[in-house]
């Protein structure tokens, strides 16, 4: 079997003709396999959805319990068969519940990794490299200028600034699913025990992470009531980045605006967004991790999707690895 007979890009998403299912479809389909809960990968309206239990829970939190007619849980590592195609889910280390999806038939095995990061993350299961013929990799940070520094050093940077500017609230922009909880958990790991204030949009997901055994410590809503008591001085406040340009941000007097994202490696991006303290924290693999992963897995072919495909394809070519861009539509370049 040729790999493109097993998985092929279609306008709806990545399609498996013998199995008759899609991986992370961007339009509603009959049967969807979903890698993780980020909005550009997990969408409502499919008839049947197969995903990890946590991804299914997250979809229900975001879209309501009726996001699909039928849900099926995929346990990590469990061997499943769909219309004669072997399917298994393996941890991707991206956010809670995230998985790579391995698809195999007649001796051809393809791993669709979704979004992944190999470095340890206290809020989700660690990435596992899976041997395969074709590895489908994301390319969000696929330029050799993206080398994410040590997480702890970035969190230390935030804590240092908090000590340096004790009368200013530190507003940390972090995506609601995954990044926000990771920032909070990393702060706890570095010994920050004070109450962390959160934007309303983060509450249900933080509660869910707690229910899954990820202790986030004392959290409180960043409401105006707290503002009037001056509670935000010396406090860390976490909110979705979109809220920063919003009227919501006005309740904090003279805040230090921080943003936790891999894009913060680029000075110009930090400047444009008015970020005073960039925190380079990414849930995606950086350049070194991308090439190390490909080297470790040693697939005979690499398909590169969402991001800077060109550079990674070029790197594969210089290493004698067959590679091509996989043009999938509908995944956001900016998703972090």
């Amino acid at each position, binding site marked *: 079997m040729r790999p493109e007979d097993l998985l092929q890009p279609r306008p709806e998403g990545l399609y498996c003709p013998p199995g008759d299912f899609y991986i992370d479809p961007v339009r509603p389909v009959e049967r969807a396999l979903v890698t993780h809960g980020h909005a550009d990968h997990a969408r409502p309206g499919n008839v049947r959805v197969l995903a990890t239990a946590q991804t299914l829970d997250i979809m229900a939190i975001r879209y309501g319990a009726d996001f699909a007619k039928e849900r099926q849980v995929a346990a990590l590592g469990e061997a499943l068969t769909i219309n004669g195609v072997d399917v298994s889910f393996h941890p991707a280390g991206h956010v809670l519940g995230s998985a790579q999806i391995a698809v195999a038939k007649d001796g051809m095995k393809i791993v669709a990794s979704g979004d992944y990061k190999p470095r340890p993350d206290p809020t989700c299961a660690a990435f596992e490299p899976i041997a395969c013929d074709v590895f489908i990799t994301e390319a969000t940070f696929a330029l050799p200028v993206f080398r994410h520094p040590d997480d702890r050093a970035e969190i230390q940077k935030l804590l240092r600034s908090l000590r340096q500017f004790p009368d200013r609230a530190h507003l940390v922009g972090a995506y609601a699913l995954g990044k926000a909880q990771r920032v909070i958990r990393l702060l706890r790991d570095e010994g920050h025990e004070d109450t962390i204030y959160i934007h309303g949009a983060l509450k249900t997901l933080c509660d869910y992470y707690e229910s899954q055994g990820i202790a986030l410590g004392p959290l409180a809503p960043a409401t105006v009531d707290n503002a009037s008591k001056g509670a935000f001085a010396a406090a860390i406040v976490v909110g979705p980045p979109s809220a920063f340009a919003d009227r919501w941000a006005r309740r904090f007097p003279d805040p230090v605006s921080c943003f936790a994202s891999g894009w913060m490696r680029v000075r*110009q991006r930090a400047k444009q967004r008015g970020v*005073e303290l960039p925190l380079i924290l990414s849930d995606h693999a950086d350049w070194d991790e991308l090439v190390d992963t490909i080297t470790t897995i040693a697939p005979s072919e690499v398909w590169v999707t969402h991001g800077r495909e*060109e550079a990674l394809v070029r790197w594969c070519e210089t290493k004698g690895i067959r590679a091509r861009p996989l043009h999938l539509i509908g995944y956001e370049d900016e998703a972090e």
Partner: protein
Amino acid sequence: MKRFAELLDRLVLTPSRNGKLKLMVDYFNEVPDPERGLALAAITRDLSIASIKPAMLRGLVEERVDPVLFALSYDYLGDLAETIALIWPVGEDRPQGANDAPTLLEVVETLHAATRAKAPALVADWLDRLDASGRYALIKLVTGGMRIGVSARLAKQALADFGKVDVTAIEELWHGLDIPYLPLFAWLEGHTDKPANLAAAPFRPVMLATAIEDGDLDKLDPADYAAEWKWDGIRVQATAEGGVRRLYTRTGDDISATFPDLMEHLNFEGSMDGELLVGHRSGDLLDDGRQRIEIGSFGDLQQRLNRKIVSAKTIESYPAFIRAYDLMQDGDRDVRAEPFRERRRRLERFVQHLDPERFDISPLVPFDDWSQIVDFRSEPPHPIIEGLMLKRWDSAYVPGRPRGPWFKWKREPFLIDAVLMYAQRGHGKRSSFYSDYTFGVWKGVPEDGELVPVGKAYFGFTDEELKQIDKYVRDNTVERFGPVRSVRANLKTGLVLEIAFEGLNRSARHKSGVAMRFPRISRLRWDKPAREADTLETLEKMLP
């Protein structure tokens, strides 16, 4: 170097003045000599370092990484220093975070002693030993591209905060100090006495005036005060002592090199305070047959300012001269403690001996009561006058801004009605507000419907008004590009802003052909229809 790199990273992104000061003060507290002094010199751009060409750095990086990947990265980031800093491969044998980053001292001294041919290997070694942010700082340092939004003045203020002294004390000393400023730091930390300024022709901190406020004049006796015109040039201190001549700005920056024509004529012994103006040759003849220099506009002055190299032609066309108004040092005598009346008499004698083409005295404006002053202010005899100065006859020359001895009373600003065209999000406290506004006036007749931008303003309104404008911007956005929104502005809809400004110049760089000085929003004209805003023609008539 690591701590210095972190300081630069934070200074660049910190919008508030207080935030920047705090960052620098903490740095001076934490970092020992001579490192902090070198950092200070780098920030004030006094550190001269053997300059490395960007092409050389590019060559270094292309030896180390795939040129195709480098090109893709450079194309994506658009900034060479940043691309090199980020893409530089960390050696296998040197794990990232290894504790052997070079110090500023190592970089400055080694580079200074090295031959041109050796520089690339040195820089490559340092790049190997630094992390990404350190590499960026190093590249900026060795290529001379240190632009971090901190003026020398602000750095001096940080030193003053650090040592809990007045900034004028720092300014006074500054030009007698050498990098890395060890006696300065020793004094600021309380280990030694204030260093004596041994420099010849040092800067003397200037005396500043406070603004006249409502009701002030009623409390003052006209007989106690002298009045002078307030000239719209730049305030300078011209000093010549023991063969050394210097021209300082009012904050102590040495601008001698910009005005070589004037420096030639500083053949006196002393230090005077005055306004630097430029002019052009007029028809009047002086006693010796030369043409007198006729005072020019602020636009003429701009021709001479902010230029590293001034061409002979510019110097010839825009000669600089000083309109003196005070004397601090007369020969070997410090006269600052004498009353203004006495200093003024000295000044008149002093200037008599100087080249009349290059020096004159700012004349006193005689008056008997305040109502005359009110009239003078509204009808100044020359466009380059921006108001009046009132100085107590008995005032000593004291540094800083004491309230009482000297007042300034600015002319009423110019006013126009303009239409809001673009709004940009602010920084820091204002980052959730659209607080920086570009406004325009009608080109031709309003009915043509074409607005041309004429200026930008980001203050002059209350917090409450800011909220109202912000709401208006959000409700009337036509297009968004990054942090900027274009706002609906046509004959029917548009927010009219009354703009106050200090003057107008011709400007080839602006589409409108004019540039406003010091524009700010004086009133929101919610009541006024956009079609009744002013036209470019009205504005052009205000040109001097």
